[in-house]
């Protein structure tokens, strides 16, 4: 059974798909444009919720969230009994929605749940660059850049592999600017 409507890329009309998986070209019946398609077995799989419509038999454990449904697994996070509807397969673990939510709040440990990243290395580079260009504000901006570099050094900046050379360069730049300012202010103080 298929629930997903696959649309033509050109005219957005629903395509009449063949009942088979694989790749091929299909001509849209509406706009007559050829569309490349790759269909996978997941398209024809029965929805899990339908499998969960099993009424509890006597002698079976029930789901903690749906008392009239048969438990099919135990949550690996909290040990709750779960029916097929509540059981979430997460990287080989069986989890309930509460445990998924709980893990989501601690994104740093579960990078697979994180959907937003801040490129702190770029922010620090921007600040370091500003501290040089806007020389008179450098005394204030460079320490901010150094603080941010220290504060977010261990945060994941990107979901893909990256190097920290850019951040190191930015921190050196900010440090040099700050040192320049310190030397200038010290000289100024001594001269008075």
């Amino acid at each position: 059974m298929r629930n997903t409507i696959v649309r033509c890329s050109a005219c957005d009309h629903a395509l009449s798909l063949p009942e088979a998986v694989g790749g091929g070209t299909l001509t849209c019946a509406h706009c007559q444009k050829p569309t490349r398609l790759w269909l996978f077995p997941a398209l024809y799989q029965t929805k899990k919720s339908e499998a969960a419509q099993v009424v509890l038999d006597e002698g079976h454990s029930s789901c903690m969230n749906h008392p009239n449904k048969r438990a099919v697994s135990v949550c690996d996070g909290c040990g709750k009994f779960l029916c097929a509807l509540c059981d979430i397969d997460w990287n080989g673990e069986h989890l309930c929605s509460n445990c998924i939510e709980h893990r989501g709040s601690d994104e740093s440990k579960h990078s697979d749940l994180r959907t937003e990243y801040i490129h702190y290395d770029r922010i620090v580079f921007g600040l370091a660059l500003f501290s040089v260009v806007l020389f008179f504000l450098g005394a204030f901006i460079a320490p901010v850049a150094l603080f941010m570099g220290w504060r977010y050094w261990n945060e994941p900046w990107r979901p893909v592999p990256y190097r920290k050379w850019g951040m190191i360069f930015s921190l050196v730049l900010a440090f040099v600017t700050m040192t320049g300012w310190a030397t200038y202010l010290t000289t100024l103080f001594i001269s008075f």
Partner: protein
Amino acid sequence: MIQMSRLPGRSVKAFGWSSQRHQLWLSPEYLLYREISGYREVVKRYYYGDIQAIVCGPTNASRVLTIILTVVLVSMGLLIALLAASGSPASVIAVTAFFMVLPAICLVVNLLLGPSCRTTLYTATSEAPLYSLGRKRAAEKAIALVLPFIEAAQRGEAPAAEPVQAPAPEPVGESPAWGPPSEG
């Protein structure tokens, strides 16, 4: 950190003063779609087991761009010819010719990238346009790299534990597995 490799194709979309870059990455467990705008990045993970279909259809974007750039270049060429015929100074002609460089580069790049397309990925809960696969050549190359992972995941095989080495791109079969639908 999970080993990942970047798939062919990229896209830059401008929204007023800001722009958004799109990239697609391959990991052992999922397809990672990155939307980068400035210092912020939003990612979407499509687990191979959840992907139901990928659709890639042609669009007119590259053709329209080619026509526009050609018209611009021809117009500027005519302008240079007129300036030369009217005896304008060489510096004026040189400056006008200089303005032709950018559209000419854009035209060459557009032609090199090939025909444009729109690629959409379907899961049970989402219909996600993959803007990074906006050119047919890149899209077919990227999809050929992803297919083995999706097929392995949906056959029930364990995902590769080793660092992902993108397999050599295989040409996507030209002969259709099925033909056009019957009329009516």
